[in-house]
């Protein structure tokens, strides 16, 4: 807990300030939750639709505390070998081949199972790290249930045992962030061990702030119109893949590059593919909303 861990005392006010400085605009609820997870030293489980900034939050956290981000990307079939550690099997074989005649058998065996031949995977790396790191376990809902069970063992004790080496205990308890798209419900056990945060798409006002923070040379009118347009598109039931915040920003940058200061029908038509990326979504947009109506919508209603 001592040493060079934090230059900054973690308080909600400090978090708010540094988050804003880094361009991550968010609300009090999120800040409070993050703060609690830091203080209670519990993993933070973030759920929400794709593109609401779940992964981004972990990245920003690592910047806030000026520390490393260790990322474990989950996928179907991910197992302990890929997540925790693996013996460098090939290297061990080579060693055996090289020292076939020379070395003493016992020494060789000792030697083969030393840290030199251990491949560190993200979880072990996070545990062994000298510094307090941010461990991001991304898309944890993609893994199998068995792996999930293994994961929450590691997350509750922060120690792992390697049979040949013994138990390795964490030097610093890492800040753990898990994200999930809610493709499958996570087990109660894992959820119980975590502080939970549900991220939703930002409100129009919040999104305007985000756009302004990230694209400094955007005009007031354009940012308002973009935020309103995106929020309308997201509310359409038939559009399957809702535009993410990153896509909103891409769209905004494109419009700025094209030197637009208002959202017009033409501009929408030309740049729509930055926002909607499947044919069925574009079709749904055209039949349900349409560029003309979108332009009218963002112009008429004052917010």
């Amino acid at each position, binding site marked *: 807990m001592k040493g060079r861990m934090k230059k900054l005392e973690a308080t909600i006010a400090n978090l708010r300030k540094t988050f804003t400085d880094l361009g991550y605009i968010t609300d009090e609820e999120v800040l409070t939750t993050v703060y609690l997870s830091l203080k209670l030293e519990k993993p933070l489980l973030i759920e929400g639709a794709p593109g609401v900034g779940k992964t981004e939050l972990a990245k920003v956290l690592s910047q806030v505390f000026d520390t490393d981000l260790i990322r474990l990307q989950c996928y179907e079939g991910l197992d302990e070998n890929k997540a925790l550690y693996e013996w460098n099997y090939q290297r061990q074989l080579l060693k055996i081949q090289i020292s076939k005649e020379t070395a003493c058998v016992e020494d060789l065996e000792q030697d083969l199972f030393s840290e030199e031949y251990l491949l560190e995977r993200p979880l072990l790396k996070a545990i062994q790290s000298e510094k307090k790191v941010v461990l991001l376990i991304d898309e944890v809902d993609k893994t199998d249930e068995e792996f999930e069970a293994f994961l929450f063992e590691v997350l509750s004790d922060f120690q792992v045992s390697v049979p040949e080496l013994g138990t390795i205990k964490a030097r610093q308890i890492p800040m753990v962030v898990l994200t999930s798209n809610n*493709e499958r419900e996570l087990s109660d056990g894992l959820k119980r061990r975590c502080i939970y*945060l549900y991220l939703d798409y930002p409100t129009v006002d919040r999104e305007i702030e985000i756009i302004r923070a990230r694209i400094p040379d955007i005009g007031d009118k354009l940012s308002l119109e973009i935020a309103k347009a995106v929020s309308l598109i997201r509310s359409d039931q038939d559009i399957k893949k809702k535009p993410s915040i990153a896509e909103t920003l891409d769209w905004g940058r494109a419009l700025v590059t094209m030197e637009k200061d208002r959202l017009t029908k033409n501009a929408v038509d030309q740049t729509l593919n930055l926002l909607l990326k499947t044919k069925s979504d574009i079709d749904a947009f055209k039949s349900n909303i349409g560029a003309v109506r979108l332009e009218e919508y963002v112009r008429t209603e004052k917010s």
Partner: protein
Amino acid sequence: MKNYLEINVVRFIHLLRHAGIRIGSGEVIDALNALALLDLSDRDAVKAALKATLVKRPGEQPVFNKAFDVFFAPPEAKEKQSTEYRQKLDEHQQQLEQAGEELSFQGTALDLSDKEKTVYASIPDKDREKLLDYINKTSSGKNVEQHFKPLLESVVKGSLSYWRKSLRDELDLSDRPQTGDQDIDALVDAVGSTGEGGFGSLLEEDMQNIADKDLPRAQALIRKLARQMVARISRRYRQSKKHKQLDLRKSIRHNIRFGGTMFRLRYRSRRVQKPKLILLCDVSGSMARYASFVLQFIYGIHAVVGSIESFVFSEDLERVTESFEQGANFNATMLDVINRSSEWGRGTNLAASLRTLRSKHAHILTGNSYVLIVSDTKTMALDEAVREVSQLKRRVKDIIWLNTLPQQEWEHGKTVQTLKNVVRMYPCNTLSELEAVMRRKIII
């Protein structure tokens, strides 16, 4: 007061649990630890802290928000709520008593449940008078004796069950909360009656009673359940990368290039075949709504089961696979099937239907197909039906019966008891039961 905070938090958690949110004791401790870190006068912070530590499913958030507002309301509002609740209870009690008095046969009260009495109290005045009139006439008729009472009871019950269905949008038949603490009862009631309880309530609702206004929500829920299930099953059919059994032959062959040193190992993996589903949906009168839900669910998991053959049956069997494979909008398709089918809404003859299946569609009955029958088991010619089912069972891998009757009614039904001996039968009365049975039993 000492422990004021703890007591309040625990009471709040009590309320959340009664509203259907699962909270473990570890989480209670987390919540208290979290509150210790915050300024308790900051309402939003307290709310965020409780939310982060206690509520861990997106669907539960609206319930939590409501519960928080109700529980941490100003004292005046709370007092008002409590009085209103007591009034509501009294009114309800009065209604029941009045109904009990009115619904009687020659001086003795009819044997009706409280729910039936509530329904009685809610039907329009004119129709209520008619019913009452009928009861009075019967009870005062000539040669009417005491043993007519059961007959009258079943007539009245039938009529009330009709009203219960047609009034399902307006009726509030939920059981009164009973926590043993009247203040909390009032709060639970206030939280429960908001009607925005997420998906939770829909999951447990008898599919037949899902009101029209809830249909879009039910469909969204079905889609979600189906998607989650696809994710779960598809994993199982992916070739296993887990190391189980060493394939020595392949390993040696593969490692010849390294001079025979076992450099890369090869493992055996079992290939799993996707099951084929044959779906038989009973579409006789009362079953139509269930059938449409089940069909939607099955087609939702279309991507991971090998192939689906669907049939609807009542007096006879009809194949509807093509209608659903065109990939058009589900509602339109369903409507199309209903309009086109001559089977929709008639009586049920399972035996004849299965005979048609065996004779006309023999080629699809193979050793790796599962037959799913969705029906309430009410059929004509029961003995013959049982014979047909057992014959069919020999041809296919298994028959699974999804019974839409609520499980507590099973023991009274002769057809259920008889058919249960022949096939595996699972309750499928609510969406959550449908999901559970699909998850556990089908894809083995």
